[in-house]
């Protein structure tokens, strides 16, 4: 593998590529043993059309999104046969894509929608939903890999022409109804998510989407001009499913959140409002708040006098982002890389969970050099393009929204109030008693599995074993009587903290084993971990176990729980490979007691 070719391919990823360039770079990327900064990903693609035609484009777009892709392209239109086939499973896919288009499965039901007053399409829609659900479950029998299911795009030509949408029983609405039902159906399937093909075609434009020559000659529905958009959209969905979203948007101020320099132009001189150019900055603020509504934290890093900048947040009438919306801020003259590291530490996040949006290329370069984990958006000079690049970055693409995501900014605000109480309390016991904590504990069910999967997937620090169980594996364990997948929800006088801890135990004869034990760092030092372990010990005892065994598997990030089992009264039971330790507890005698400072609400 020629290194210069790979370097050239990677350098070219930022450019507009001609089809010939895409084919050349795809070959180079495919042949590379490893692509720097990209994770090896095996994607299996099953479609009702020739999706293999897009493969070179997908390889290139995957590299742009940090995925070094290899693909398995299933036989055309053979969904049921392929999802159970040895060839597909021998490929060991990291992700499966199911792309079934109604017009391919039954062209008459779409093209002659009104021949049966839409009944044929309604039957087709129901049959497709059943087939897709059955395919996901059949795949699940042999793989835990996530599945993306494409929804259905509006065809360019609709049966009633320009008035199709005006007829309540027309194809326009039948397709929308199919997509809504697909969303509901897929949400209930383990480890599956919708890939918004309809959104992609709508954004790119149905006109010109298909090149009739390519469709006729190769059953490839995407014209050359749109192959990049098609593959880019799919690669973005793959990256979101496989890599997960960033958690905090860190914004610069001058010429980013407003136009001009507040230190020079003053409160009245900055550009911000409903007229250009101030409208461009206001639009970015609105987009940032939309992210906040979805659970993304907002923070500020700026070289400014703090009082002057803070005054803009508090007093400028056009500011949409207010001071209280910020999870934290660093407004000073220190290097931004250092400030970003401080922000990450303060918010208990890895630096890779931060996204920097800063108009100044010098600052971006400083951060790339000195805090390379931070995701830095390449901000264009024109503020009218800010919202587009923020959205197109895909850094905040989130497959599912849990209740905790929606209220996260509230949670951080409550945390600040708690810290005030902590400073005033005389002792730790007084502080904990003063919080008036109450906890719910229980076994995983459909309502809690999403949040459990999220915590299992992302918790780094308070995590004894860091086992990243897939959604499908968690669903399987929660349905198995020999396993206990337990959660704990915590609340106190300042508000609801949500589902903050997860423990998974397994009973083998008279030995109970703690497979997973983790907790959100928000609720450290409050006895929550003792409460959850008491619950697991109760379960193990009820399952006739006499011993509870737990392992500590060290990672770079979980040093804080090295002595966790010792603190809870477990006895050392030997060393494991790679510095891990095993611990055991005699259940009848030594079970940890539920902490008195937490009122137990159920279980």
């Amino acid at each position: 593998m020629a290194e210069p070719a790979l370097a050239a391919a990677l350098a070219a990823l930022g450019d507009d590529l001609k089809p010939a360039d895409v084919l050349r770079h795809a070959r180079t990327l495919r042949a590379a043993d490893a692509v720097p900064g990209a994770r090896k990903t095996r994607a299996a693609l099953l479609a009702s059309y020739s999706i293999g035609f897009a493969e070179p484009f997908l390889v290139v777009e995957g590299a742009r999104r940090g995925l070094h892709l290899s693909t398995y392209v299933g036989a055309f239109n053979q969904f049921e046969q392929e999802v159970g086939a040895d060839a597909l499973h021998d490929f060991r896919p990291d992700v499966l894509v199911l792309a079934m288009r109604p017009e391919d499965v039954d062209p008459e039901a779409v093209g002659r929608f009104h021949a049966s007053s839409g009944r044929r399409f309604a039957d087709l829609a129901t049959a497709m939903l059943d087939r897709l659900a059955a395919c996901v479950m059949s795949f699940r029998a042999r793989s835990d890999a996530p599945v993306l299911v494409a929804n259905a795009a509006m065809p360019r030509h609709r049966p009633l022409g320009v008035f199709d949408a005006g007829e309540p029983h027309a194809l326009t609405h039948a397709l929308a109804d199919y997509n809504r039902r697909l969303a509901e159906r897929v949400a209930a399937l383990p480890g599956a998510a919708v890939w918004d093909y309809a959104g992609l075609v709508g954004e790119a434009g149905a006109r010109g989407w298909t090149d009739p020559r390519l469709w006729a000659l190769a059953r490839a529905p995407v014209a050359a001009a749109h192959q990049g958009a098609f593959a880019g959209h799919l690669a973005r969905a793959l990256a979101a499913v496989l890599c997960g979203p960033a958690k905090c948007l860190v914004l610069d101020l001058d010429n980013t959140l407003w136009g001009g320099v507040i230190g020079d132009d003053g409160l009245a001189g900055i550009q911000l409002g409903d007229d250009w150019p101030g409208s461009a900055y206001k639009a970015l603020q609105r987009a940032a708040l939309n992210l906040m509504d979805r659970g993304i934290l907002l923070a500020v890093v700026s070289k400014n006098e703090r009082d002057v900048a803070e005054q803009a947040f508090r007093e400028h009438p056009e500011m949409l982002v207010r001071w209280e919306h910020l999870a934290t801020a660093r407004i000073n003259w220190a290097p931004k890389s250092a400030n970003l590291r401080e922000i990450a530490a303060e918010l208990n996040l890895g630096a890779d969970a931060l996204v920097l949006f800063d108009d100044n290329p010098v600052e971006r370069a400083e951060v790339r050099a000195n805090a390379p984990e931070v995701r830095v958006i390449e901000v264009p000079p024109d503020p009218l393009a800010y919202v587009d690049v923020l959205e197109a970055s895909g850094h905040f693409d989130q497959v599912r929204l849990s209740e905790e995501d929606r209220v996260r900014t509230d949670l951080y605000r409550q945390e600040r109030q708690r810290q005030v109480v902590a400073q005033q309390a005389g002792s730790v016991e007084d502080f904990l008693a003063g919080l008036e904590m109450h906890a719910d504990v229980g076994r995983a069910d459909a309502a809690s599995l999403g949040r459990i999967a999220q915590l299992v997937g992302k918790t780094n620090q308070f995590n004894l074993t860091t086992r990243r169980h897939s959604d499908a594996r968690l669903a399987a364990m929660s349905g198995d009587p020999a396993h206990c997948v337990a959660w704990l929800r915590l609340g106190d006088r300042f508000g609801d903290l949500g589902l903050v801890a997860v423990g998974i135990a397994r009973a083998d004869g008279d030995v109970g084993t703690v497979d997973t034990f983790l907790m959100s760092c928000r609720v450290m030092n409050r006895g929550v971990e003792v409460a959850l372990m008491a619950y697991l010990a109760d379960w193990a005892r009820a399952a006739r176990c006499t011993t509870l065994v737990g392992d500590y598997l060290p990672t770079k990030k979980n040093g804080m729980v090295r002595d966790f089992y010792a603190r809870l009264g477990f006895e050392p039971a030997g060393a494991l490979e790679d510095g891990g330790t095993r611990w055991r507890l005699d259940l009848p005698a030594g079970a940890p007691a539920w902490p008195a400072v937490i009122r137990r609400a159920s279980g």
Partner: protein
Amino acid sequence: MSGDVRLRAVFASVFGVDGAALTDEASPKTVPGWDSVNHLHLVLALEGEFGVQFDPGEIAELTSFGRIRERLAQDGHG
């Protein structure tokens, strides 16, 4: 760059072959990887490079380096 150089570069990109070594007789029988799918990739790559468009009948006929070279020459890409 002359049309000939650009044409050979497209072949090199699509099939990973040495473009300079191609003769007019190069065809799906002699060029590894020149199958029906890659034939369409080649056609789209040529269209992208030369700003031309071939109709479906022509696409089926353009099955050697020589025929493609002659077809492009008709459009002034000699």
